[in-house]
């Protein structure tokens, strides 16, 4: 590792965090759609959905949190794309800095921004009746899963950020990610779905992650779900990281 890696990453992280501080609307925008979904499902559809849970908002929140992350990470692709377009990316590349610091700064920025958005969403959920008897350890476990999921999706977002040819292209990739929770156990139990859809829903990462967080929220034993969820996150993280590294090498050579 380059001996300047930490200092360079810190300098560039400070820059990106300033960007966010000066346009906090990105955090609000990230949080608004998931909050709208949450209100819609709790107050409009929720009464008709049979989940077996004591309150629908308790059932719904894990999926909403994942949607928040899926919409938040598109800003990473967007910011990276703008850096490349604006030429500042090349300026950094022509300087004697640790080269991976440029990407890590964007990734860590995404982590900070998404955590803030998640806190906002959880705050609204508490206002409309979300309750959990989780202890500190439970919260830490949930936070750990969400951090890992955010890192995995952010590295995924780095790829279009580096390769896109237009702003729209850079952010469009996140739409399927936002839709993924709808075909999972996030809103309705998978048991109510027809065969092939159910098979897909039960074997895609969102269901495992949602179930793991839901069990933590309700203080049930998490069991295998947790490991499946962690394996998915780690797997996506590793693959996305490697692909991003390839895209980066292409971009800078």
């Amino acid at each position, binding site marked *: 590792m380059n001996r*300047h890696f930490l*200092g*360079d990453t810190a*300098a*560039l992280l*400070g*820059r990106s965090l*300033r*960007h966010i501080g*000066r*346009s906090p609307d990105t955090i609000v925008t990230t949080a608004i759609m998931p909050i709208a979904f949450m209100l819609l499902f709790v107050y409009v559809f929720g009464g008709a959905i049979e989940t077996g849970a004591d309150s629908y908002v308790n059932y719904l929140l894990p999926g909403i949190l994942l949607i928040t992350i899926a919409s938040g990470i598109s800003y990473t692709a967007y910011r990276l794309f703008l850096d490349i377009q*604006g*030429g*500042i990316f*090349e*300026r*950094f*590349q*022509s*300087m*004697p*800095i640790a080269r991976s610091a440029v990407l890590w700064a964007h990734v860590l920025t995404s982590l900070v921004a998404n955590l803030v958005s998640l806190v906002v969403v959880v705050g609204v959920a508490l206002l409309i009746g979300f309750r959990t008897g989780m202890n500190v350890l439970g919260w830490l476990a949930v936070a750990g899963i969400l951090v890992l999921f955010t890192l995995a999706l952010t590295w995924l977002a780095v790829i279009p950020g580096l390769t896109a040819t237009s702003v729209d292209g850079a952010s469009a990739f996140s739409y399927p990610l936002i839709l993924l929770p709808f075909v999972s156990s996030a809103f309705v139990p998978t048991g109510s779905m027809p065969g092939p859809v159910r098979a897909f829903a039960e074997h895609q990462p969102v269901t495992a992650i949602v179930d793991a967080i839901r069990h933590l929220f309700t203080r049930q034993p998490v069991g295998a779900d947790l490991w499946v969820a962690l394996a998915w996150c780690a797997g996506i993280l590793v693959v996305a990281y490697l692909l991003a590294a390839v895209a980066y090498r292409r971009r*800078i*050579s």
Partner: protein
Amino acid sequence: MTLTLRQPSMLTGMDIPSATQPTPEPAIHVRGLEKSYKDLRVLRGVDLDVARGSIVALLGSNGAGKTTMVRILATLLRADAGTARVNSLDVATRAADVRASISLTGQFAAVDEILTGRENLVLIARLRHLKDPGGIADDLLARFSLTEAGGRRVGTYSGGMRRRLDIAMSLIGNPPVVFLDEPTTGLDPQARLEVWQAVRELAAGGTTVLLTTQYLDEAEQLADRIAILHEGRIVVDGTLGELRRLLPPATVEYVEKQPTLEDVFLTLVGAGTEQGQR
């Protein structure tokens, strides 16, 4: 246009021996550099030396390959063939060391619009691992008449201010070799003069400057030597005086007139060939 001479064939490819070749190892040393984008052969064997502390203008039409050349020298692009050394360091094998001895001001101002001018400078100073980034930023703001604007977001700056900030950012850490890619393209005349002044100050401080330009007057004004890049090669390289001497003094009907650099350029390049290359 006052092109009165038409003897292009004997001039093309002519080499002007340099009268003053000061140090054995120039700041920039390029031999046989080649680069193609798929079928498009942009550089076809470029040779160029830039003496330490001098300003050399790389002159060429739009699409001649100036940016390509600068990006190779700044380690942003790999050449297909040939060698290039900057500050005695090979750009291909010692890229990281080359980056420590250069700075690049790209064709389009590479500044952060959301940060203030001062924050931009502090950021670069931190990335160059210098002590007292704040002090360096304040010095440069003063030097480039940006002190008042320093606390404003760059998004509110005029084109000239942006370019000045861009160049100021390039000077942080006093890199011995500076590349300026079309530093005044798109600027109004006043801003142009400001940039020229900044470049002159740079060179006065001993920095080697390689600047690219499509403007003949810019090359005339700033450069110690001028290299004309055409069809993938440096077709001529010399001082303004040497370039002028390439063309015999014009024997026009009424007045004897020194050929301008424009005459030399158009004679060498051919007035009509630069179309369709952009």
